[in-house]
């Protein structure tokens, strides 16, 4: 009976009507002059033109500015830039068309504007409560599936001073609408789709084994209780292997949309709960090695599975049922099921990389890298969700 909240306010719209009705959505949310955030890739694909023509369809909503994000590493300067463009053009709403960091920055811009707190570092501290002062409508149109940040209340801010990615969680970070458009999604490459699948898999595993903590008196204790996050993960894990391979093989629009929707709802449902060791480790590797977060996922998934196997054997065994199906599950003896789950996931990751990511180069770590990753990981609050306690020696040992 412990207090719990779930399902954030983001509404997910799928199909073509989403972008076509963009002007209605913006008008209904109270926007009259919007800032469109995108990148050069979206511009060259013609997606931004579609968004622009839909926004200004009936003439009631004007386009205040179009911001093309580039060199997204320095979070502080990008946000400053966006803030300036937004204010100087008198905008009152945001439409972001893109993925990854671009969506995070649009969400952080919304947080800054809504709360009128210009210094985003104030949100690093959990005790800072930013109240909504003005309403800033935000609509996200992801261009890659499986990312999840288009419909959750979490954003990553790269702290250049400490060379560390910070997680910011705030209710105001969840967009009002997330439009999943098949034409935009289909423009993504096969490799990016495969990474999207890996991201969904990582989140589902993190959510499935997540532990929960609550403040009891003056201490933070692990609490038992019914959690809906596990069910979200269970739904996402069910037949994930066959669905993903089928979708990547056939490239059918319907299958891709089904998978994209499932992934989006998983992020919406899990919110903070779905971020665990895989997410934290991939982020830490990304910071240390200076490469894209998605490219770090295969290593993070393998290392996390090895790290947690000892303490998660029962949960991994349950996850095997969903992942491979009950018929295959019942063929294995009880004691082998957890190990089987780990090997099945690893095989699946290898298969995806071999088939669909042509230029994948396995990451190598030296001792300094391992040390730096272990330190970075200790800063990430989502490591708390992991069932096995933080153990730097063991973490370094699984990073091979």
């Amino acid at each position, binding site marked *: *009976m*412990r*207090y*719990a*909240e*779930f*399902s*954030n*306010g*983001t*509404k997910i719209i799928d199909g073509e*009507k989403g972008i076509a*009705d963009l002007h*209605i*959505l913006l*008008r*209904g*949310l*109270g926007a009259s002059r919007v800032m469109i955030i995108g990148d050069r890739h979206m511009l060259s694909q013609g997606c931004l033109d579609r968004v622009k023509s839909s926004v200004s369809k009936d003439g009631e909503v004007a386009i205040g500015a179009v911001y093309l994000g580039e060199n997204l590493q320095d979070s502080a300067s990008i946000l400053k830039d966006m803030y300036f463009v937004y204010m100087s053009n008198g905008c009152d709403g945001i439409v972001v068309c893109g993925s990854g960091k671009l969506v995070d920055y649009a969400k952080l811009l919304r947080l800054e504007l809504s709360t009128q707190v210009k210094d985003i570092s104030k949100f690093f501290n959990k005790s800072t409560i930013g*109240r*909504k002062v003005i309403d800033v409508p935000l609509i996200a149109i992801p261009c890659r599936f499986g990312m999840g940040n288009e419909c959750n209340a979490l954003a990553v801010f790269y702290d250049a001073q400490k060379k560390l990615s910070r997680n910011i969680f705030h*209710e105001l970070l969840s967009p*009002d609408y997330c439009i999943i458009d098949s034409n935009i999604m289909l423009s993504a490459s096969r490799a990016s789709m495969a990474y999207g699948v890996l991201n969904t898999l990582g989140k589902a595993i993190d959510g499935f084994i997540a532990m929960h903590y609550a403040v009891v008196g003056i201490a933070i204790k692990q609490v038992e209780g*019914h959690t*809906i996050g596990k*069910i*979200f993960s*269970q*739904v*996402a894990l*069910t*037949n994930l292997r066959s669905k993903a391979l089928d979708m990547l093989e056939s490239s059918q629009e319907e299958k891709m949309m089904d998978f994209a*929707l*499932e992934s989006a*709802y*998983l992020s*919406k*449902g899990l919110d903070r709960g779905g971020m665990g060791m895989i997410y934290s480790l991939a982020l830490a590797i990304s910071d240390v090695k200076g490469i894209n977060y998605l490219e770090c996922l295969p290593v993070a998934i393998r290392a996390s599975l090895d790290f947690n196997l000892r303490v998660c054997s029962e949960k991994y065994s*349950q996850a095997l*049922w*969903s992942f491979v*199906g*009950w*018929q295959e599950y*019942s063929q294995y003896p009880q004691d082998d099921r957890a190990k089987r789950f780990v090997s099945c996931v690893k095989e699946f990751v290898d298969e995806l990389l071999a088939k669909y990511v042509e230029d994948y180069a396995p990451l190598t770590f030296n001792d300094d890298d391992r040390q730096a990753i272990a330190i970075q990981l200790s800063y990430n609050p989502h490591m708390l969700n992991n069932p096995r306690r933080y153990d730097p020696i063991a973490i370094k040992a699984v990073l091979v």
Partner: protein
Amino acid sequence: MRSQYNFESDIKFLTGKGALRNATVALSNMGARRVMLICDEASVKHGQLNSLLRQVGKDLNITCQYKKVLEYAMAEDCDKALRLYKEKECDSIIALGQRSAIYVAKAVKIMLKDGVSFMSNYLDCAVNNISSKPIPLTVIPTYLSSGIEASNIARIRCEDKRIIRLDTPFAQTNFLVLDPCLCSIIGRKNIASTGLNALAMAITSLTSHSKVDPMTKVYALDAITLLTDNFEQCLMYSGIRKYRFNVAFATALAGCAYWSSPNAFLTELSDLICDYSGADYRDVFNILFAKGVEKIEFKCDFDTYALVNLIGYNQYVDVQDGKNSGQIIKESVKNYYAKLKKYVKYPLKLKDLGIDDEALSKVYDEFSKVGDAEKIEYANKLLKDE
């Protein structure tokens, strides 16, 4: 057809100890300054209204209360509540109680968003497509809920017994609050009705022929998990609040799942039988569902193999004996129902609810007028041996 938009945030669940207090913060963030409370007489009688006011009275400005809702949601109640809302210049609504109070609150919200003053107007016209007027609606179901709290449906009865059924996003619940302090002690029969109803709704939505979104699957699965973990204990130890709360939570989730893609046939038939006989909707629905499972083979429109994978590790699902997935689901449901018989005697036939042949023949005649040939045949199968 143009899509309907209400421009409000999606439903948010606040559950567990302190949910009522946290709801005040959430409502205040949504801009609620003058709140109208709509509740039914049963909630007043059972002290649930007082519990609510004790918890939120200080933090929330409840400017007016409409407490006269009876067993059925009447159009007159909706009109009066709407007038009161306007007189007191309210900006948000809280619904406390059972089905009828929630229907009235939803109807008031629809009328406000649509700019309509009388419920009876909807006898002749449909609800508009677009309204950007935000009216936060918080639903606080009492234990005897029927899962409609998260639905977009309002079913209102006119004085001449005509029914107005509205299904529109304007009726959307913004916060669903479930606090253990409102789970008062009730009889085992009521617990059985509520729990079985939740189970029926969850299974119906998972085996639905229409395409369901992942959220629906999650809610249905979560309801099944909560029920299989708590329902029997709740029947055995009905005094323990934890079990009652979990069954109520399961009902709310199952309702969420069911009403996002309701089985129109079962709902229509149950509603008709209730209208003619005055029987409890949940009992009627449970009986029709159980008969459906027994009599009608699971069609292969949905992937039963995937469904067994989805339900996963559950003590009631026995997969070891080489049956196919459809049989596994069917037998799991039957075994579970049989097991429950040990704890409580629940109605198995419509006649057990006091519904006589005359009422059933009227129902069948009425249903024949509106239903298509396949539905009529299905209804015939279900009602035949009654």
